[in-house]
């Protein structure tokens, strides 16, 4: 993984290519060069999610329990009908099967991303406008077309419900005196439009009280993030394949069929998919412009990363801000020094390729209903939008034949991991984690 060479890179391998055995006989699939093998080995296994020092309760089971409860709690929305789970449906891979997120008949601008393995990401949302999982959780709560609530309302929900109140204080310490309606209006948040009722309420508060509510709000995000960190799905057939490669051990049954192995060869070879879909998440965690055509046709109108970079840098909930538990750490430096040149216009986050099956549609507007359509797009670049004189230098049409496209699909299918425990897919009975053992059997 760590290579520093002064000499030009050697493309040819010097080691004998590895071969995959199947059913006791030597498979005649593609041979991988030593370099390809090193690349493949870096795609697996999926390690535990990296620590998030900006969230001091990221791995606290009590916070995770509270967060899981809140994730399904529709009281956090203005209508009382929407929760995180409304769009991030657990049975649908924590997405919603639609092109664009939609609540109450109002479509959002982008596709709902999955939350499986989300804690492996570095930036959140398609445009990276949040730099931590806990900061991401806050935005839908206050988004008028999502949960349409406000941080004051959320704080009041926590405060008024006995169990939530207790669960919150057990993790984060005392809540502010939210019962004082004069100091803490029922609803309110900072809004650009100063005449918005939320803005009026917010600006009527004392500065110290506003900060206190912001802290509660941030903590809500941190609890939800603690739950989401547990949504880890690795251990795919591909991972078992790589484990065998690594050990040199040959099993009696082929872990990957020939087609998938050919697909893997394309993935790390001629297809160059691994340039962006790198690492155990099969995402480089950064942003690229694939020239994917907008859902409704026409010229691209979504600025993507260009807009997201401004937002994350300005957010009071970013890693360098007052609510971060490590405001001088690497994530803080990264967001403080973020570059926002206009070349990032139209760039979107590289999604992870794990667990894609049945989780369409795909891409930032769900433009492609099936994985086959996605592969066809990369194969032909037909309909590629906004390229002008200035073409993305990494992307060229792959010109795959039918067999190759099927092989790539087979490989992507082999990235499907073990299902999540059912205890993580439903709201728990209580936001409070019992001190000894627990009734939900989620294994603490």
């Amino acid at each position, binding site marked *: *993984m*760590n*290579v*520093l*060479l*002064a000499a*030009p*890179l050697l493309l040819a391998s010097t080691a004998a290519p590895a071969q995959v055995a199947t059913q006791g006989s030597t498979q005649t699939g593609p041979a991988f060069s030593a*370099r390809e093998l*090193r*690349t493949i080995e*870096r795609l697996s296994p999926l390690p535990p999610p990296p620590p998030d020092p900006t969230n001091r309760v990221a791995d606290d089971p009590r916070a995770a329990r509270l967060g899981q409860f809140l994730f399904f709690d529709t009281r956090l929305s203005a209508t009382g009908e929407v929760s995180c789970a409304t769009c991030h449906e657990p049975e649908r891979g924590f997405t919603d099967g639609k092109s664009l997120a939609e609540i109450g008949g109002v479509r959002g601008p982008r596709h709902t991303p999955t939350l499986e393995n989300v804690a492996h990401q570095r930036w959140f949302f398609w445009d990276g406008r949040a730099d931590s999982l806990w900061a991401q959780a806050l935005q839908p709560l206050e988004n008028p077309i999502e949960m349409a609530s406000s941080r004051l309302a959320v704080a009041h929900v926590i405060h008024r419900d006995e169990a939530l109140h207790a669960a919150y204080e057990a993790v984060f310490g005392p809540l502010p005196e939210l019962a004082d309606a004069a100091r803490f209006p029922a609803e309110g948040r900072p809004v650009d439009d100063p005449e918005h009722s939320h803005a009026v309420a917010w600006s009527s508060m004392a500065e110290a009280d506003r900060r206190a509510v912001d802290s509660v709000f941030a903590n809500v995000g941190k609890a939800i993030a603690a739950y989401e960190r547990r949504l880890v799905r690795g251990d795919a057939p591909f991972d078992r394949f790589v484990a065998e490669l690594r050990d040199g051990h040959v099993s009696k049954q082929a872990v990957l069929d020939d087609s998938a192995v050919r697909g893997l060869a394309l993935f790390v070879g001629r297809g160059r998919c*691994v*340039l*962006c879909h*790198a*690492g155990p998440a099969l995402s*480089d*965690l*950064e*942003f690229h412009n694939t020239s994917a055509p907008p859902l409704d046709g026409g010229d691209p109108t979504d600025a993507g990363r260009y807009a997201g970079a401004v937002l994350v840098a300005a957010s009071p909930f970013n890693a360098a801000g007052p609510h971060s538990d490590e405001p001088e750490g*690497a994530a803080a*430096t*990264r*967001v403080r*020094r*973020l*570059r926002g040149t206009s*070349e990032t216009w139209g760039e979107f986050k590289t999604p992870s390729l794990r667990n894609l099956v049945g989780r369409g549609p795909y891409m930032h507007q769900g433009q492609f209903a099936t994985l086959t359509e996605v592969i066809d797009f990369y194969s032909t670049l037909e309909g590629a939008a906004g390229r002008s004189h200035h073409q993305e*230098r*990494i992307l060229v049409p792959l010109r795959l034949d039918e067999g190759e496209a099927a092989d790539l699909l087979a490989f992507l299918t082999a990235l499907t991991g073990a299902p999540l425990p059912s205890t993580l897919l439903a709201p728990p009975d209580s936001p409070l984690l019992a001190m000894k053992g627990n009734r939900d059997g989620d294994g603490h």
Partner: protein
Amino acid sequence: MRPSTRLLPLCLAAGCAAAAARPPVVPEAQEELALAPWPSDEGVGTLSNDGTYWVAYVPPAGGLPLNADFGLVVRVFDAETRSRAVAGLELVVDARMPAHGHGMNSAAEVTVAPDGSFAVAGMLLHMTGHWELYVDITRGPLTERAQFDIELE
């Protein structure tokens, strides 16, 4: 871009045809700093692209990582002896992939240590392939580049 509103000196306004010569600007004397000589077995060194400086950087243990934050220590010396630190420098450290036409997504942060070496934080090489690491050394109006080739796998 920020025009002065002062009047031109009389000589020029009167239209002298002769060259308005000025003595060359004298470079500042180079101070010596308490920087240990470059340990020849540590890190990677190169002459800057116009031969003015010897620039060395010490990578993190284990080498330059792919797609993970890392820091470097950079030292700038005179080219002749490779042992005297040079004062009055500003450094910018960056990296770019020439084939892709892009650089790093966040800018690295450079701070000067008391001994005159430069601590670089926030480096992130997010893709495999050929990178060029740049150490751009500014003194007065001039900047000179030292660069290193990096093949990242």
